[in-house]
């Protein structure tokens, strides 16, 4: 009798594991990428890329193992003996490298040939309809080469899923055992495997991680823009200083002094008058 897993489509099984694993690992990789960016290291090149890839490995191994277990339990009612993450991850990675290599060549060729064919078709259309507007031409040309490219890409994705699904099935056949738990218990089992069961632990651990990451993030974050626009920088507005005209300045100062002298004389006069008044009293 065939193993129950053989009745399941390889592509569907691989998709269920790989899609969930991708999203399970994604937030963790994003944290690393964000911290690298805050520290002004690009995660898509050089040391940043190496760091991200190295950190991604254990994350992916954990994510693949976790999601594979939940998928087996939910869809096949099977539990797996021993760890499955490493085994599935390296098989998926090797298959990925092989398929990606083929896809890189095939998609590149399809794009090049497709664009040439599209250009030839457009040239042919222009012979009969020279006034073909540019907007219509762009969309038509785009569709002509992207449709075959998308089909080729889809074929390679399906090929990888098929091969990975085949390896996933081998793992299930080799080390899977039917779970004795009821459907409700199995649902709880796989759901709790992905989501912490203790609400307090969820809140406390999440809050702790958020606080730590926030502190690290703000410490690394540049205070002013690290990428000012090269053509439109901030215009430094300087206060226009008044030009100094010596003659005007001297005249103004003399006038002020004269005014001050007059005020002083008036004050002295007033004071002496008050003194005289006081003596006469």
């Amino acid at each position, binding site marked *: 009798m065939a193993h129950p897993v053989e009745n399941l489509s390889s592509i569907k099984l691989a998709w269920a594991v790989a899609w969930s694993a991708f*999203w399970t690992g*994604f*937030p963790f990789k*994003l*944290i690393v*990428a*964000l911290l690298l*960016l*805050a520290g002004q290291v690009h995660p898509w090149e050089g040391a940043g890329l190496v760091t991200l890839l190295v950190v991604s490995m254990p994350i992916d191994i954990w994510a693949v193992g976790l999601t594979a277990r939940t998928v087996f339990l939910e869809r096949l009612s099977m539990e797996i003996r021993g760890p499955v993450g490493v085994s599935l991850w390296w098989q998926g990675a090797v298959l990925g490298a092989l398929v990606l290599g083929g896809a890189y060549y095939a998609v590149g060729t399809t794009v090049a040939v497709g664009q040439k064919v599209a250009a030839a078709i457009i040239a042919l259309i222009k012979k009969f309809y020279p006034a073909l*507007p*540019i*907007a*219509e031409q*762009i*969309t038509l040309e*785009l*569709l002509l080469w*992207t449709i075959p490219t998308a089909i080729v890409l889809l074929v390679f994705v399906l090929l990888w899923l098929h091969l990975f699904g085949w390896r996933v099935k081998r793992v299930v056949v080799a080390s899977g055992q039917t779970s004795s738990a009821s*459907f*409700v218990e199995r*649902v709880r089992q796989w*759901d709790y495997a992905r*989501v*912490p*069961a203790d*609400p307090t632990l*969820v809140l406390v651990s*999440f809050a702790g991680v*958020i606080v730590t990451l926030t502190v690290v*993030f703000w410490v690394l*974050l*540049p*205070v*002013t*823009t*690290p*990428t*000012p*626009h090269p053509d*439109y*920088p*901030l*215009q430094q*507005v300087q206060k226009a200083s008044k030009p100094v005209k010596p003659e005007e300045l001297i005249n103004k100062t003399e006038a002020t002094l004269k005014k001050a002298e007059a005020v002083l004389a008036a004050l002295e006069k007033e004071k002496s008058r008050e003194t005289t008044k006081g003596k006469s009293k």
Partner: protein
Amino acid sequence: MNAIFQKVYDFVDERIGLKTLEAKLMNEPIKGGSRWAYVFGSCLLFIFIMQAITGMLLMFYYIPSADHAYASTQFIIHEVDYGWFILSYHFWGSSAMVVMVFAHMSQVFLWGAYKKPREMIWLVGLVLFVIVMAFGFTGYLLPWDQRAYWATTVGVEIMDKTPIVGDFLARFLKGGPTPGQMTLSRFFVIHVMILPAALMGLAGLHLFFFRSAGPAGPFRGTTEELKAKTDFFFPRQVWKDIVAMAAVFMIICTLAFIEPVQLLEQATPDPGEYHPEPEWYFLFLFQMLRWKIFSGEFGQFLGAIAIPGLFLLLLAALPFIDRSPERNIFKRPIALLSWTVVMIGIVVLTVSAILNREFLD
């Protein structure tokens, strides 16, 4: 510590019925259990709250006047501590909101969750979609650079083509023959006062209707399976929502780092070498309007007003046209095909608009 906390809790509970509220909010049963597919609505709420916070922070420095808007935005980018990051977060947050609205609407459409008895949730959601797009349109003018000025000019000209109310709408928004101080003031008020108030009110109504009708649940699975998987909102759906919100937050931060906001030249009534273009989520419509079929006064009205208007009307009428109780998308080929064609159309036209740039010079 726990005793003090308990006392405070009891004090508040006695006065406002905290326990009942908590039970209503957290113990809502989710048919078929928690799912990642249900996180979009919560994410939208989170993005809006973050937009409100970053928007308020920006308002501490932004001056909504034609003389100072550009300089104050430049000041935020170059001088204010972390101002560049807050502004870039706000900018990318608006794009994230549009993407999330599309994701949320797509999920509701594909899962047939707009059908009876959830028609009202769908209708209010559509109005919220229009409000989100209006947020993007009005916010785009505020930095007052060439990009902002000309995108608004093009947008208002398109609006002008609406029959009967078009002229009034265009004059009301511009406040004069050309965009200027009055336009900026009006867009600012709409962006920071009218739209947030409308969004908060309608989002509340949307949630109220959602809670009244209850979640639709998955479109597949036997009654026994769905019953077995049914769970409360807390803790598993809350956990999924929090993880999704954190991911959205980090994606927006990442975009703010990779492509921070950079202003072009200050707005002038002369476009010079700048080719006017709207924000990326309106590019598909902008490119469609370049087609020959949509040239001329009537063509522009057809492409800019009639077709999008009819599309929105069709979406509004959808729950009343599609009365079949079938929710499984794989058993609704017309719905699946329509959604695929619309999505591919939007992507192809957006990419076409980007490719079109090199033919403009």
